[in-house]
C-alpha cells in the first residue's frame, strides 16, 4: 500500500506544532535569553504557514517510506530503542550482546536462511566485536560503559 501524502501540508503542520510546543514551554525569560528563540520561533511559524498555503495551492505529493520493507523499519527502530533501555537495565555488555545478535539474525533472515550453525558462528563474532569495543573504550579511552543488573 502506497502512503501518498501532501508533504507541504505535513511539513507546515509539523512546523507549527514544533513552534507552538517550544513557544508555550518558554516560560519567563529575560529579554537577553528570549530575543533569539522568539525570533526564530516566529520565523518557523511564518515558514510553516507559507508551507500550508503552498500545500493548498501547489502541493508536493510524496510517497512515504517508498523504499524497502516497512515492517523491518519498525522492528529495527524498536530494537535500537530496546538496546538503549537494556543498557540502563542490564548493563552495556549484556544489552549489546543481546541487541547486536538479535539485529544480525533478524537482518540476515531477510537475505538468507539462518541455520543454527550460522547463528553459532555469528554469536562468536558478536561476542568478539562487543568485547573489542568494550576493552578499547574501558581500558584505553577510560570511558566506562554503564553497568546494570548484569555487566
Amino acid at each position: 500500500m502506497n502512503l501518498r501524502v501532501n508533504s507541504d501540508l505535513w511539513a507546515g503542520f509539523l512546523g507549527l506544532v514544533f513552534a507552538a510546543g517550544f513557544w508555550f514551554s518558554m516560560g519567563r525569560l529575560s529579554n537577553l535569553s528570549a530575543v533569539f528563540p522568539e525570533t526564530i520561533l516566529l520565523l518557523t511559524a511564518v515558514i510553516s504557514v507559507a508551507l500550508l498555503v503552498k500545500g493548498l495551492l501547489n502541493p508536493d505529493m510524496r510517497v512515504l517510506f517508498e523504499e524497502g520493507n516497512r515492517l523491518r523499519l519498525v522492528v529495527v527502530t524498536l530494537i535500537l530503542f530496546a538496546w538503549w533501555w537494556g543498557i540502563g537495565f542490564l548493563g552495556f555488555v549484556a544489552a549489546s550482546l543481546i541487541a547486536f545478535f538479535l539485529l544480525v539474525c533478524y537482518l540476515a533472515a531477510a537475505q538468507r536462511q539462518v541455520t543454527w550453525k550460522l547463528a553459532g558462528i555469528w554469536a562468536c563474532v558478536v561476542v568478539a566485536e562487543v568485547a573489542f569495543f568494550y576493552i578499547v573504550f574501558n581500558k584505553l579511552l577510560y570511558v566506562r560503559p554503564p553497568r546494570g543488573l548484569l555487566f
Partner: protein
Amino acid sequence: MELFLEALVSILQPHMLLVIFIGVTAGLFVGALPGLTATMALAVLLPFTFTMDALQGLVALGAVYMGTIYGGSFAAILVNTPGTPSSIATTFDGYPMAKQGRAYEAICAATVASVIGGVLGVLALLLLAPPLARMALFFGPAEMFWVAILGLTLIAALSEGSLLKGLLGGCIGMILGTIGVSPVGGESRFTFGIPAMQGGVELIVALIGLFVVPELLLMATRGRAAIDAAGMKTGAREGMAIFLRTARAVLAKPVNLIRSAVIGQVIAIIPGAGGSIASLVSYDAARRSSKRPETFGRGNVDGLVASETSNNVMVAGSMVPLLTLGIPGAPPDAIILGVMMLHGLRPGFELFSTSGVLTNGFILSMGVAALLMLPVGLLGGRVIYRIVVGTPYFFLVPSIALVTILGTYALRNSMVDVLIMLGLGVVGYLLRNIGIGSAPIVLGLILGGIAEMGYVQSVLGGMAYSVPQLRLVENPLSQILVLLVVLAVGAPMVGAWRRRRVGKERDAGGET
C-alpha cells in the same frame, strides 16, 4: 633562519618521525569512529605527554590532531557520518560518490586535499603568523554574527527541492541549539523539566543522530548496504591508477584549493569559529563559483576537496592565535595550550625567538604530519574502505549502531545523549520522507548558537545607542560581511531571474 634549520634537524630525527607516524595513524583511526573527536583524542593522549620532553609532547599532539581531522573524512565518505564536526561538508558529496561506486576516488581526493590543506596551513603559520594574529583581533561579536548569517545562506544550496522546507529545517536546528542554559542570560531554556537537558543538544550527538541513524534504517529496510561492493575489487595497481587520476583532477583546479585554503585560514584565526564553519563556508564558495552548481550534493569532487582543504588548513591555522596571542582557536588547541604551559612556555610573539627551535619544530612537525597523511591515509583508507564495503549489511548495521551508541555515550558519559541521538535519528528519517533534509537542521544547530551569541553581545555593546542593533553594522569589516551576505542571497535570485528572462525571450523568438 638558524633557528628554523635547527628545528628542521630536530624534527627529522628517526624517533621524532616515528612519533609523528604513530600519531597520524592513531588519529586517523580515532577520527574515523563517529563520536570520537580531536579534542577527545588529545585529552586521552595528554597524560602520555607528561613523560615526554616539550617538543616530543607537542609533536605527538600535533600529529594526532592532524590525523583525527583527516580521519573524520573516512566515516563521512563511507557511512555518511562526519567522524568529526569538521567533516560535515565532506558528507554532502563524499557519500553520494561512495554510493555511485566511487568511494576510493573520494578517499583519494580527500587525502590529496587534506595534505595540501595541511601543508598550506603550516606555511601560513610559519610565514604570516603575526599579521594574521592582528587580523583576528578585528573579529568581534558583530562580525561573528555576520559570519554565521553568511553560513546560513548555504541552506538554499542544501535544500532538497524546496527552499521553504530547507528554511524550516534550518529553523528547527537553530531552536534545538537554544535548548539548555542560554549563553548570555544564563537561564534554562526548553529543558521540559528534564535536568539532563540543561547541557543542551551536543552538536556531535545531533550529527550522529541525523546522519547515521537514518542511513542505518534505510540499509535495514532495503536489505542491503548503501555502498556497492563492486568497487572494492580493485588491485593495488588499479588503486594507484585511481589515485593518480584523482590527484591530477584535484590539482587541475588550483583556484578551488587556494580559495578553500584562504577561507579556512581566515576562519581558523577567529577563536570559537571551528572547522565545521570553515568547511561549510568553503563548500558554499566552491558551489557558487562552479559552472555546474546543480551537481553539488550529488557526488561532485570539488565540494569534497573544498571541505577537506579548509578543515585541514584549520589545524595549523588555529595555532596562529594560540601561539601569538595565547587564545585557543578551537577546543583541541586548549589542550595544546595546557601542555605548553606545563613546560613553561608562554604564548606570545616572543615565543618565536625565545623558544624558536621548539616553536618552529612544532610547526614543522605538523607539516611533516600533513605529508605523512598521504601514505598513511591511502593505506589506512584502503583498509577502512575494505572493512566497510566487505562487511555483510546485517553485520554492518549493528556494528555501526554499536560504535555510534558508544561514541555518543563517551562524549558526556550520558545515556540521555544516546536517547537524544536515537530520537533525532528517527525524527530525521521521518522528516527526510517529507522533504526536510538533515543537512539544513545541522547547519542551523551549528550556526544558530554563534549567531545568537554575536547578536546578543553586539546589542549589549550597543546599549548606548538609541538603536542598539546599529552596533551590528558599525565596523567596516561588518559592512563587508553584510555585503557578502547580500551578494550570497541576491546573486542566485538575479541569476534565476535572468535565466527565466532569457528562456522567455527564446520561447518568444521560437514562436515568431
